[in-house]
């Protein structure tokens, strides 16, 4: 085992200081070291999107980052969104539209959705599908996920009074 490095990192608003081996992936750091098992691991090579989290506010693959790189970073995982009693609006929309079956892809879909809703107009369903093209779901056939995001887009644009563009 190679020399450990100490990192300070904020996850879902809580500050942690941990010694990590260089090869420890962020996804394993979250799941194994911090016990935050909401972030799922499907493929470990960037294809499935199940491990997607926000790093300093931007969606990234937790299987393609090493924890040691993230000294000083702020991470948001699916656990940051809502609780069983008080769902985040996007989670509520997923529930409403039956946008999940087994739920394996859901954490990645939600965190990708959060970033897409911030960055893109998502004016058409095609644009939503393009935005989700990096996240695989083996259950739903995607249609209900697209519908859930469509509702979230509507809510976003009503709150801001207009579409982004």
């Amino acid at each position: 085992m190679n020399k450990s490095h100490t990192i300070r990192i904020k996850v879902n608003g809580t500050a942690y200081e941990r010694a990590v081996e260089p090869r420890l992936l962020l996804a394993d750091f979250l799941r194994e070291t911090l016990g935050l098992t909401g972030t799922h691991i499907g493929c470990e090579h960037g294809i499935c999107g199940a491990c997607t989290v926000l790093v300093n506010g931007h969606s990234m693959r937790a299987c393609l980052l090493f924890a040691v790189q993230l000294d000083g970073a702020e991470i948001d995982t699916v656990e940051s969104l809502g609780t069983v009693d008080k769902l985040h609006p996007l989670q509520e929309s997923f529930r409403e539209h039956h946008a999940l079956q087994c739920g394996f892809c859901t954490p990645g879909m939600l965190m990708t959705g959060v970033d897409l809703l911030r960055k893109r107009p998502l004016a058409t369903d095609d644009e939503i599908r393009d935005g989700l093209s990096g996240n695989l779901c083996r259950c739903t056939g995607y249609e209900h996920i697209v519908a859930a995001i469509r509702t979230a887009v509507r809510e976003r644009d009503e709150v801001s009074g207009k579409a982004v563009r």
Partner: protein
Amino acid sequence: MKPAAFEYAAPSSLQEATKILADYNGEAKILAGGQSLVPMLNFRLLKPQILVDINRIPNLDYIAEHNGGVRIGALTRHYALETSPVIAARFPVISEAMRHVAHLAIRNRGTLGGSLSHADPAAELALMAILLDARLTAASASGTRIIEAKDFFVGALSNALEESEILREVEFPGFPLFTGWGFEEFAQRLGDFAVAAAAATLTMSGARCTQCRIAVIGGETVVRAVNAEALLTSSSLDDKTITAAAKAAAQATPMNSDLRASSDLRAHLVEALTRRALEAAKHRALEKQQ
């Protein structure tokens, strides 16, 4: 799978980074966005002794106008390129190509320097570098040198950098006036690597084409379709010549054959995509003259 153990360094200057690369003599790997490198580490296709993380080096992430062109720092993220107003104004062909590079979460992290250094024969940014005659600046402990894009991609996943060199900057020289562009790609899903792609720029003077550049994805490396370019230069870009040029582009390099497409299918795609890219470029060049 999980990667084999490695040491980790996060130098805060290029000098420090090039020194570590030289000290480890081929056993070190540069880590930029990690979007191509980390999958290879996770599969244990690579087992470097040390990773040299260049993300903490300042001043490697910028897009600056220069002589009508742009200079871009190697650590510039795909997302920054995709959304840059400077790129949209100067090089709309790059903005269009970026829409086809992977997905939002990959673009948020992946870098220009990493994509070019990785030298994937289906990478859209390699296509842009070859199409637009990019000039790449490499830094090493002994100084810097400039490598022309055409000399940079020496084979699939192989580039012209020495073990201890770091790609530092990429310059895209400016377009002449009245230049139109086209970019066309075929992939299984938006964001997948291209099965085949073609990009073109056409410069017009009156009804004549004065300069033509065509680059294609489909073979062992990205190539310029020089024979096709020669057919179009000085022509009036009539349908017959465009058709002939598209055919010639499909012969520019031996096409790859793999699970996704046979070489025949790739040649067919390159011909069709080149024709569309040329028509779009012609249309835009004529529009600019009005």
